[in-house]
């Protein structure tokens, strides 16, 4: 019996190791190509063990470090502010929905959920943000449009509260004379750390990886976040494809970063997440709870 179990263990481990290798291999290729000499790359192709190493791409990034550091700063700031406010808003929507005695809770939940199915499209949203709420060319433009990046997070959080916070706890606190806000912030949130941490990671991730708001609302290059910068460089090829004329093509060509530099920027963009993620990971599994829209 024990042997059989060990046999199963090794099979399970082997399968998992193969899967993790599949996940890691492209990253290895990414990192190695950012370290390959440019001409070697063009001539001899991508390889895990390049014939000629070069740190020129990173040297180039370092030479342009003010731009990149500013962009990093913007990204960090936006991610922090956005995550905290988005999280707060999500929690404050989720908690009332989790309360069984709230009148109209299912309708309100549907009000939240409905936004996932329909949206007005880019142009109306753009008009809203530039003409009525003037966020263009400010850091707010990177923060506000993504506050409720995924309405389903509210539902996920509501389900978590439902399953993990016993009604009795809330009831007891209320009998002690605590108000709803106090109950939420001193009892419910501390009891829901795994969920809060998970949400923080998910919301934070969407802020970190967001480039669309930058694309639409930011023109001032000093407000570029790291992803906007990256996207700007990578999208030049697309501009070429969509048919610019010769003068523009020549200029794009002259400014276009080499493959190595693109890869290096990608590495630089993804590295911090890979460093931070393991710290959140222990909460991740405990925090996720999937449930229906109705409660």
């Amino acid at each position, binding site marked *: 019996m024990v042997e059989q179990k060990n046999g199963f*263990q090794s099979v399970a*481990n082997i399968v*998992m190791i193969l*899967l993790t290798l*599949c*996940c890691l291999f*492209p*990253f290895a*290729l*990414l990192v190695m*190509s950012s370290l390959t000499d440019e001409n070697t790359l063009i001539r001899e*192709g*991508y390889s895990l063990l390049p014939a000629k190493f070069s740190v020129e791409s990173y040297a180039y990034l370092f030479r342009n470090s003010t731009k990149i550091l500013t962009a990093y700063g913007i990204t960090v700031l936006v991610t922090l502010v956005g995550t905290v406010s988005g999280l707060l*808003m*999500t929690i*404050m*929507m989720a*908690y*009332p*929905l989790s*309360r069984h005695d*709230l*009148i109209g809770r*299912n309708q*309100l939940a549907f*009000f939240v959920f409905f936004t*996932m199915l*329909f949206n*007005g*499209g880019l*142009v*109306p*949203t753009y*008009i*809203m943000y530039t003409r009525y*709420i003037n966020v263009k060319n400010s850091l707010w433009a990177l923060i506000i449009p993504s*506050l*409720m990046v995924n309405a*389903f997070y509210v539902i996920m959080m509501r389900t978590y509260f439902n399953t993990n916070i016993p009604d009795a706890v809330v009831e007891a606190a209320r009998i002690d004379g605590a*108000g*709803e806000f106090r109950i939420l912030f001193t009892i419910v949130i501390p009891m829901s750390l795994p969920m809060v941490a998970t949400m923080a990671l998910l919301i934070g991730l969407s802020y970190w*990886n967001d480039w669309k708001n930058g694309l639409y609302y930011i023109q001032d290059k000093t407000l570029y976040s790291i*992803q906007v910068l*990256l*996207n700007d460089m990578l999208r030049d090829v697309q501009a070429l*494809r*969509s048919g610019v004329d010769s003068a523009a093509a020549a200029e794009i060509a002259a400014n276009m970063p080499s493959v190595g530099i*693109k*890869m290096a920027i*990608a590495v630089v*963009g993804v590295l911090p997440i890979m460093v931070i*993620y393991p710290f959140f990971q222990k909460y*991740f599994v405990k*925090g*996720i*709870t*999937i*449930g*229906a829209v*109705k409660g």
Partner: protein
Amino acid sequence: MTKNTAVQPAANNRPNKQKVSAMRLKRCFPLYLMFLPGALYLLINNYIPMAGLIIAFKRVNWNKGILGSDWAGLNNFTYLFKTKDAWNITRNTLLYNLAFIVIGTVLAITVAILLNEIRSTGAKKTYQTIILLPYLISIVVVSYLVFALLSSETGFVNHTILKSMGKEGISWYTEPKYWPAILIIVHTWKTFGYNTILYYATIVGIDRGYYEAAVIDGANRWQQVWHVTLPSLLPTIITLTLMSIGKIFYSDFGLFYQVPMDSGPLYDVTNTIDTYVYRGLVRLNDVGMSSAAGFYQSVVGFVLVLLANWTVKKVSGDENALF
């Protein structure tokens, strides 16, 4: 379920109904207050811009304003249905999404169960961390990774693998037959880690008592999975699938446009509603027609979700339905 328990006492006790409601309403007030900022935000960020959907039915002239522009009836929609391509892009969008849903779900559940079986906590943590990595990077970077693998000149597959096997390189970006597989692999590679964690979280939450009871009944590991784990996962599966169905007419633009490098010979298998609309309209700059496409995608998704939800209610009861 809970709604019923809440309403019943009031119904039984008619004279008190109003008083109870008033009291409840008063008690609910701080909760509404709490809900308000988010609700206002959704109103401004999501609901009011939905007014813009009206553009789909207009021949927009910005000088006259959206409302003042002439009505176009359904003219903005016809291009989505009229041509031979219409069938092709609809089929591609639907089939890819179905494949993603089925393959993604099966793989994620399998891996989640495997992960749960592994005893070494260290190994478990490491696997969890690594399989989520692809989820963290942007699709643009993914498209460069795929190119590094498949480029006919410099790609890893042609240059290193096939060459060392003494085989001819394949011109990947001009051979449509490989791409359904490639796109499914890339999408699955990118998302299975996240989905695995979603299912794994549910599995971890299953009461150990069920397994113990199953063991006492003489269930082997496979039977435990079949009779305990999978039924416990059902609500999660249904919820996630229903949500995917809501998006079934959408496609990840990056996956279908950037990953195949917009290569013409691949269009038969890579053109989806989103890429078709983009390619056709980027030069036309017609807001009405692109709004029409968005409207069409939302409505079909919405109707399908309602239908699927209704089916779930009929088949497996109210408690598994999404709403």
